[in-house]
């Protein structure tokens, strides 16, 4: 599993930096859903709605978001779904501080891994863009990855009520890089963007969830993520001078390269986004 240092390497640049390119309302740092909309704000709202639908989130529920980012989904569930409480887990100190400062009476956040988290039963669980960090390249090499994903599903199973749903979104690996440029993109993303992280394959998740969760619905997207990355890069570059002044030219170049490499990876089908609705088998 990517450790706290790995997570902080990517997510603790500065909360204000991410605000320069993320959607203005929910600050969601994962693929948006561009069905019949034109702005990033609308597309991220679509995504939050879909995953909340996949988790069957309803008014009055107690919900858990594993890998909650800056709390966008937690806020969406409180505002739009009228949940009774929303609890988030993150390994990023910057994200933890940002959510903690909101001081919402029904919102809690823990700077903690799901592995160490113990709490009462939740009505629904969500995890968006966290699963990509659960397994390291070394874990995959040693064939430990299925066990780690199984541990995650088991933890969700233990933390939720009977028949509860799990709304899950993760990037998945579809095919191996087959050109030099795609190899270089993968190399950059793994070494300089998300160190300590390796992507799951869809089959890994099916096997890991066996006997605990039934996969009720699955959507796979490619161009939606490419479009999201294009929009992030556009917004970043609209603030180019400010970014360079505040954070340096290297960071600006790094994010341009990262967004471009990831966009190509989705557009050419090396990776895809999986959105899943899982239901507990008992």
């Amino acid at each position: 599993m990517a450790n706290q240092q790995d997570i902080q390497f990517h997510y603790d640049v500065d909360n204000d930096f991410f605000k320069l390119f993320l959607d203005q309302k929910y600050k969601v740092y994962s693929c948006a859903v561009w069905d019949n909309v034109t702005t990033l704000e609308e597309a991220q709202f679509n995504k939050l709605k879909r995953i909340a639908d996949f988790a069957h989130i309803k008014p009055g529920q107690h919900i858990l978001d594993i890998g909650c980012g800056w709390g966008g989904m937690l806020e969406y569930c409180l505002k739009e779904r009228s949940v009774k409480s929303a609890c988030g887990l993150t390994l990023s100190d910057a994200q933890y501080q940002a959510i903690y400062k909101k001081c919402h009476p029904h919102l809690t956040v823990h700077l903690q891994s799901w592995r160490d988290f113990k709490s009462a039963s939740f009505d629904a669980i969500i995890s968006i863009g966290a699963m990509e960090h659960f397994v390291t390249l070394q874990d995959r090499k040693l064939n430990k990855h299925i066990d780690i994903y199984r541990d995650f599903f088991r933890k969700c199973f233990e933390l939720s009520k009977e028949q509860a749903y799990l709304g899950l979104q993760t990037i998945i690996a579809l095919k191996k890089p087959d050109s030099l440029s795609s190899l270089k993109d993968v190399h950059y993303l793994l070494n300089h963007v998300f160190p300590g992280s390796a992507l799951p394959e869809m089959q890994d998740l099916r096997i890991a969830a066996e006997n605990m969760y039934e996969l009720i619905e699955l959507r796979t997207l490619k161009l939606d993520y490419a479009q999201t990355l294009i929009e992030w890069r556009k917004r970043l570059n609209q603030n180019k001078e400010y970014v360079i002044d505040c954070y340096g030219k290297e960071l600006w170049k790094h994010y341009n390269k990262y967004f471009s490499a990831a966009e190509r990876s989705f557009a050419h089908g090396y990776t895809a986004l999986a959105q899943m609705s899982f239901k507990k088998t008992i």
Partner: protein
Amino acid sequence: MNINMNIEERVKNVIAYQLNLSKNEVTNSALLTQELGADSLDTVEIIMAMEEEFGREFIDDQINISTVQDVIDYVNCQIN
């Protein structure tokens, strides 16, 4: 011939280093994945390391590598 031998040895050295193997395990016919234990990301590292070893950026092209010989052929093709 000598140049090719040199390339071959250098390719094998890089593969051995990347996969943490002894040089005599890296035979021309050895399958990178099934016999030498490389995963797809090791392959990425091997190709990237070849560019470094030979001090040039390779031309973007399709890569279809299964054996050590495939890597040698790929590097020879890129260099020549």
